[in-house]
């Protein structure tokens, strides 16, 4: 994991809203999710496979996302994930919490809160 600056707890807490946000844009599979997170974070967050898949499976168990197998044109079968209505609700409540935290941090560090 090349996330030297992030604590394990922070990664653990943020992985769920990050994954749910990505999947709310479009359905995706593990490899692509890791790639997209890497791109969006400017390579600052690089999920390890051993971390991502168990999180995906946990989210599926909770009913936030659904999985299905889909074959690509080249014939490769991949397991896709897509967000459910329950997941969307969870995401919006996560967004609210993160906004509150963001607001508090910005205030404490004497910065202008971006969006609250």
């Amino acid at each position: 994991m090349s996330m030297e600056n992030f604590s394990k707890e922070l990664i653990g807490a943020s992985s769920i809203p990050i994954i749910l946000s990505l999947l709310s844009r479009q359905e995706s599979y593990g490899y692509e999710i890791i790639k997209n997170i890497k791109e969006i974070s400017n390579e600052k967050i690089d999920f390890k496979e051993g971390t991502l898949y168990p999180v995906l499976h946990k989210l599926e168990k909770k009913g936030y996302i659904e999985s299905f197998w889909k074959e690509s044109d080249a014939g490769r079968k991949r397991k896709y994930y897509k967000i459910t209505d329950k997941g969307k609700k969870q995401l919006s409540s996560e967004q609210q919490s993160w906004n509150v935290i963001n607001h508090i941090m910005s205030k404490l560090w004497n910065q202008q809160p971006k969006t609250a």
Partner: protein
Amino acid sequence: MESTAKNSLEQNIKAWRKSFQSKSEITEDNLKELEAHLLDEIDALTEKGLSEEEAFLVAKYRIGDKEELSKEFKKVNKFNYWLDKLTPYLIGAIVFTLVSKFYSSISILSYFLVHSIELYVPIIVPSLIIYSSLILALFYGFKYYKKVKLKLKIWTWALILLAIPVFNLLILVLSTKVLQPQDYAEISKTNAILTWIGYASTVILGFFLLLAKYKKRKLQENQFHQID
């Protein structure tokens, strides 16, 4: 040249898959998912100019080894993990219960046999013949089963197992109608002998099976060291 390279990649992936199959916390579905991931990673790396061999090694390293992965997967597949751990014990308990009931059926059956055709031998003799022919039938049945690679569905197994208590019940009902109290003494003696033979053979068989499993595991471990 091209085809050998492809073959070796396929073989590498096969060996990689196999190294995970001993881990019950990683399900078949998880493994398929990881394999698709591995292939995607290999594609991306070969596009960057790595050879297939190199790409495989890097991709394998990035995905992580089985100990690392299974530790993470265990957290979500807990039920699966414990079920897999407990299954052999459950099967053992069921088979043991059924088989121990089976001895009494064999002794009663041989009692009928001896008395109906008026054989003047102790009933332990036909009991042992029935018992050992059943063991032989089981042994050869299993060998045949392995040879033809016949895969029985789970309900077929359940049906076979169910046949034993049904058979036992039939014999029991029959015996209570026909047998006199004094007949039971001989039957229960035979029963006890059969039970002890059963215990001994289970222990011996179990010992050899465990030994075979241990040897096989050692062999597999050595193979994986070579691949690594």
